[in-house]
């Protein structure tokens, strides 16, 4: 080798990069990665996907304006009924341990009726994050985007309900999530 040292290094780096790149593409085509939902991702894939998701949601939801009346009882009531109709099958309700969907989906839908977990978000941040997730959904997971059939107000109602959900007893949940006959807004 007559090349000076820096050039040699660049050359071996680029060879390495090409080998890794080709190897990666080869792996993708090989069909070796397990796609079955009943086998969890390996730690590396999990880390990549989780970081990708969390960074993306943080960036996209940071400027969302949370309504001032997010704690109102009217929002709670409206959100409770919608949650029960559209979300409880995956995200469960007080007193319920699992469902076919909560067991079978991967990534698994978090139990939103359980005590709040890892996310140490402050309340505003949590509300922004939840609003964004409900409206836009999460790619490559069972979480649908609900924004096409539901306006922002209805989504905020569900965000409001989610805030109280872990504290509800099964009886309270039943009352709040039922659709009273006056629920169609006759007053």
């Amino acid at each position: 080798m007559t090349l000076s040292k820096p050039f040699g290094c660049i050359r071996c780096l680029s060879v390495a990069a090409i080998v890794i790149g080709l190897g990666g593409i080869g792996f993708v085509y090989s069909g070796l990665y397990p796609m079955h939902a009943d086998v969890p991702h390996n730690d590396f894939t999990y880390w990549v996907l989780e970081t990708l998701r969390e960074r993306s949601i943080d960036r996209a939801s940071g400027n969302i304006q949370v309504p001032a009346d997010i704690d109102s009882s009217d929002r709670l009531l409206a959100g409770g009924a919608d949650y029960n109709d559209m979300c409880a099958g995956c995200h469960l309700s007080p007193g319920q341990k699992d469902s076919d969907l909560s067991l079978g989906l991967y990534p698994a839908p978090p139990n939103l009726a359980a005590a709040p977990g890892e996310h140490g978000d402050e309340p505003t941040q949590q509300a922004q994050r939840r609003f964004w997730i409900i409206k836009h959904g999460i790619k490559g997971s069972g979480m649908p985007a609900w924004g096409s059939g539901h306006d922002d107000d209805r989504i905020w109602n569900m965000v409001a309900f989610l805030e109280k959900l872990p504290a509800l007893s099964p009886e309270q949940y039943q009352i709040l999530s039922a659709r009273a006959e006056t629920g169609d807004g006759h007053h």
Partner: protein
Amino acid sequence: MKNLIITILTLFSIMALASTAQAHDPKEHMKDAEKPNCAAMKDMDHSKMDMNDPVMQAMMKQCMASMHGDDEASEASPGDHDEHMKHDAPPNDDETSAAPDDNHHEKPEASEETPGAEHSH
């Protein structure tokens, strides 16, 4: 011209179909909706009930609607409902503001304890 009409009609029917498929109108659920089981409220620990708690207020509203759905209370404004809610507070709860329209609300008090109170109409 005929083609245009057909196009427009097709578009409209597609739109109609699409809207029934995606728009999730709360009314669609009314037929199979569960009614609130308000009888369960009387088993809850009344001393722990906080009337300023939105959860409590929401439960009160829900149960007001199902119990007085067909009397004049249902015509009242939501603001009015708040007064009714305080009314159903257990006696040991401080009653700060006396509602002016007390009287018509004393009688249903008894019916709240009976399962029959969840009548349909």
